[in-house]
Every structure is written in C-alpha cells, then in structure tokens.
C-alpha cells in the first residue's frame, strides 16, 4: 500500500516535470549561461575547468607516483582512465555541492509565489548533465582517436548515468530542504565531498584498496558508479551486476527519502526564508 502511495507521488512529480518543461528549460539555459556570462572564454570554461583538474591528477598520480592500473587497464593511458572515472564524479558533485543553496537562492520567488521549488535541484541536475554530455563527447572522441575503440558496453552508461542522476537528485532534495533550516549544511557538505573524493577510487584503481577496508568501502555507491563508467567507456572490464544493483538500490532509496523529506519541509519554506 505504501509503495503505491509513493508511486502516485512519483507519477505526480513526473507530471509536474512535463508541465513545467518550458520553465525548467529556460532555467537550465539561464543557469548555464549565467555561469559563463561576462567571461571571455565563455562556455570553454566548462572544458578548461575539468581539464586542469585532470592534468593536475595526471601529474600527481601518473608522473610522480607512477600508479599501476593493473591487469584490466594495463594498456590504457592513465589520462583516459582517469577522466573516465572523473567524469561521473564531477557530474555527481556538481549537483550535490550546489544543492544546499538551491532553495535559498530562489527565496525571493518562493516567498512571493506558488513556486514548485522541488524542481530546483532538478534544474541543477539538468544543467550538470549538459556539461556532462559535453565531457562524454570529448572523451569519446579521444578514445576513438587514440584507437581504443568503443564497445557495445557503452550502452551500460545509460544505466549508470540514470543511477547517479537519481542518487544525486535524492541527496540534493535532502540537502536543499534541510539547509533552509540548518544553514551549516552548506559548509559541512564541501568537507564531506572532499573526503569522499579520496575514499572513492577515482585517482587510484579500486583493486588497490586494502582488503581490510575493502568490504566496508564496497558499500560506497559511487565506487560502483566510477568503476561502471570505466567499464562502459573503455570496454575492458566486465559489468559488475552486484555493484550496479547496489548503486541502483541506494539511489532509489535516497530518491524516495529525499522526495519525502523535501515534501515534508516544503510548506515551511516561506515561513523561514
């Protein structure tokens, strides 16, 4: 009975997405444009920014620390391998790190109009996805140019992308609604993201995790997202069904909890803002 209730809420949410598609579109365009407006290189910053990060990590982990990628990715360039794992992470953190301010920065509208504030994290998600697709296009180009070839496994990317999106949206709902009441969340989250970046095997292969803590770190859904992306883009490893299932389950549970949290807190937004 409960699932049916949640399902109805979900259907309502989807219906609202469709109804507000025009508004979401203009907010997304606005969001992307505003980020680069007034800068000379404009949209190129969305490429330059991750590229600089990539070069930094490449220098640190490949040139200085001479990281070995192990049997599966032995032949692959570290840069390509790194960016394949970095892309999903950057997509995820872009949504999550912006989420605490999502509701707050629209307070002028929320206070004065009946505004579907639950769409705000979705706007960030969509904007991040646009960036993400550009990144994917670029890496696909590199993969082809460098002659690694793209296998059928690229299809799995859709599943992983979906899972990360749902997961990020759930977290975003929780953080954006809680931050209205507890402004500390915005500060806490940047610390947490920083920690998570290093406990997720992005700059090092997941098989390097010591066995002692491996069992524990395996519950990190982003580990499976990163590994899954590498698998799908580079086509070397096999799909990890257990990992994908864990990722999907965590994502959907977070999504439901996020949706319920947001819905519970939303009526009080206008009172507190």
């Amino acid at each position: 009975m409960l699932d049916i209730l949640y399902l109805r809420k979900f259907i309502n949410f989807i219906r609202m997405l469709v109804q507000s598609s025009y508004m979401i579109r203009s907010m997304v365009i606005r969001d992307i444009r505003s980020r680069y407006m007034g800068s000379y290189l404009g949209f190129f910053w969305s490429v330059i920014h991750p590229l600089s990060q990539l070069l930094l990590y490449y220098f640190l982990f490949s040139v200085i620390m001479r990281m070995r990628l192990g049997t599966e990715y032995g032949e692959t360039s570290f840069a390509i391998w790194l960016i394949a794992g970095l892309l999903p992470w950057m997509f995820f953190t872009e949504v999550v790190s912006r989420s605490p301010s999502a509701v707050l920065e629209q307070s002028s509208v929320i206070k004065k109009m009946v505004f579907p504030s639950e769409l705000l994290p979705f706007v960030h998600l969509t904007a991040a996805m646009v960036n993400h697709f550009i990144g994917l296009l670029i890496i696909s180009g590199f993969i082809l140019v460098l002659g690694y070839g793209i296998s059928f496994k690229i299809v799995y990317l859709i599943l992983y992308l979906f899972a990360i999106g749902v997961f990020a949206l759930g977290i975003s709902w929780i953080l954006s609604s809680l931050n209205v009441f507890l402004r500390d969340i915005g500060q806490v989250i940047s610390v947490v993201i920083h920690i998570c970046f290093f406990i997720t095997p992005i700059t090092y292969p997941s098989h390097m995790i010591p066995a002692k803590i491996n069992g524990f770190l395996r519950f990190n859904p982003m580990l499976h997202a990163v590994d899954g992306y590498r698998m799908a883009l580079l086509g070397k490893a096999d799909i990890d069904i257990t990992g994908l299932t864990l990722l999907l389950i965590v994502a959907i549970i977070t999504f439901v909890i996020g949706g319920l949290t947001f819905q519970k807190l939303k009526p009080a937004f206008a009172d507190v803002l």
Partner: protein
Amino acid sequence: MNAIEVNNLTKIYRLYNSPKDRLREMISVTGRKYHHEFYALKDVSFSIEKGQTVGIIGKNGSGKSTLLKVICGVLQPSGGSVKVNGRISSLLELGAGFNPEFTGRENVYMNGALMGFSREAMESRFPEIEAFADIGEYIDQPTKSYSSGMLVRLAFAAAINVDPDILIVDEALAVGDMFFQTKCTLKIKKIISKGVTLLFVSHNPDTILSLCKTGIWLKQGEIIQIGDAKDVSSGYFKQFHAEQNINLQKQQSGIEESLNYETASIMGKDHLSFMDGGDVFIRRVASRSGNDPGWIRNVIVIDSNGNPTNGVEFKDDFLVRIYLEAKKDMDNYCIGFRICDNLAIPIAHSNNIIEKLNLPDLKEGDRYIYEFGVKNIFSPGNYSVMVSFEKIVIPNLRHIIVDNIEGGEFFEIKKPIDLTNWFYSKVFASNGLKVYDAGDIG
C-alpha cells in the same frame, strides 16, 4: 459560486529567539518547546463571491499581507482552510516573484510559465505587457538593475495581462508614479468590469473606496469589521482617532496640575473658556521649541458651527483657536500660526501684526484665547497647524520665540459631497472673443 472561501483561518508563526533554539527544538528528545507563538491570523472567516471587489485595511502588522499570501498559497495555514475557485494572479509586494538575475523579459515568461501558460501563449501576450509596463530597453536588462518604480510597472503589467479570475494586489502600486497609478487604477477598473474578483490591500482608503465595494478591516490578525467599504473605512478611521486620543491621554498623565480655569472674556468672546477643549497642551507634536516666559497650552480647529473638529467640510470657513498662558509679565508679543500641507510645507500664515490686532499685555498667570478666522480656500486633503508665540524685538523682523509648536493640530478638508455644483457655464458667440496669436503676447 464563491471565488474565495476562507474558513476559521489561523496562521501561527513560531518565533525563536535564535536559530540555535530552532535546532534545539528539532532534536529535542523531551519535546521541550523553544518557540513562542505569534498569531498572524486568528480564526478569520469570510467568503468572496465571484466578481466582488474587496479592499482590506488595517495597520501595519495586522495580518493583511499574511492573509493574501495564504490565499495565494504561498504560505500554508496553521489551521482552517482556504478554498479558491479560479486562476489567481497576484502582485504581492514589490516585483513579486521576480528573479533579480533574470531580465525583465525572462521574468515575464517565467511568471507566465508558473501560471501555466505555454511559451506561445506568452509570446502573444508579451507585446501588451511590454507596452503597458513602458520601461523601454530595460525590458532586456536583469531586474536587479530596475528602479522600484520599474519593477512594479513590469510586475503589474505581467500580473494583469494573464487573464486572471482573481486579482490580488498588495499595496504595491503606491511605488509607481502618478501617471502609472492612474493607468493601473483604470486598468483594474476595466478588468473588474469583466467580472474579475479583486482583493486589494492599500494604506490609502481613497484608493480602496474607488476600487472596492466591500471592505475588510483587520486588526491583530482578526476581522474587526466586514461589509460595505464606506462603513468599514469610516469605522477604521474612528478607531484610529480614538487610539490617538488614548495616546494623548497617556502623554497628558505626566502633567498633573490643578487648573483653576478662568473665563478669558476679552474681545467679547465671553462664551469661551479654557474648558472647551482647551486643556493643557496634550497633543502629540512633531516638534516643539522655546521656553519662558509663557507657553501655548493648546491649539484647536473649530468648524463653522462652533465645534472643535478635525474634519472641515469643503469651502466651510473655520477658526484656529490658540490657548496661551503667561508665566511672567510680558508685553509686545506676537501670536501667529501657519497652515501646512501634508508634506509640512507652509501654505498660509498669519499673526496679529499682519491682522493689525493689538494684544493686551500679559501678567504672570494670565490665560488668553486667540482666535483666527480662516477663509476656507483649501483643497481637500490633510493639513497641520503650526503655532508660534513670540516676543517682538523689531516687528516682523526680529522675534524671540517663546513657544513654537510644529504640527500642533491636524485637520482634514473633506472632499465636497456634491462634485457638480461648483461650476457655472456661459456661452459666447465666437466673434465675441478676441483670439490672440502667440506672437501678440509679450
């Protein structure tokens, strides 16, 4: 069918002394409450029929805006219910719901989208909105660069051009200039005539009377009176004046003095005494200066029937009566007054020198009443009286201020009841009038 139905509506704000208290209460295991409750609306019920025009009046903080916000659905009621039939377009506060980073155009489209209009539907409406707002090229600038007047222009244009069933306006129009206000009033009247329900909040009772048939008077979150707009606004004003008097009495209580009134029967006005309204100066005054050797005890306005009043009929002559007491012996003094408009700009003045009136010398403790008859040439509006009591050194050049009170009394010149009987008309044959060319003059 009723357009708006409000039943036992209550809105409680939880006030915390600090944000920490909010957190403490959230995580409190014992269920201890850290907030105190503030009733912004208390058990408010009314219904508005379709096509009704309703004005809400009340002091600041009486819950007017909260009520509108709950009806719009921006705020959730703490108790009771609100039922709304039809599409609401609202103008709550300045530039309601505009995102400051977006351009005017984008904000208009966004508002339209929130109201459920497609891009195509908004495109067909946009020229009308743009023309009505009349803010020129600013339409493509971010709204954060707008002046408050431009914001309200665009917000109003956007709110009114989306075919609302119910229009809700929260005293936003006062920001616009005179021309825009007139334009808005006419536009509102036009859409009212199409059967749109109007809910209007304004500090200006004239605006409410001109637009609304029904009035709701809110005080501290409760409805005091609901009914015909004229009755409600006059009730509101009665209460306003009564409250002012209470304030005055509070101020008076500081001056405990046994007054031995005597009749100041000079210049044949023996029916006057310090008794009739001429107590110690108790009115709240904007500014008072001067001291010894005397003081102004009171100043009042008397209508043509001889009654103290704060509302003078149009064209009805009135008196300014000044009550004076000398603390020391004094001769060669001057009593004057000014009538100032609602911006405190003096527009007429007189004193006994101008009126060529010799005043008797004052002995210590003397009390006199001075009366100036005023020919009522004033247009309807609010005025204040400034009074001064001065010692003359050189007449009309050097006066020492003994007592000077700005805003000593306030009065209103009422609007003429009959607007039509002030004119006469004559007809001339055209050859009977000399027509000048511009070149003929000067």
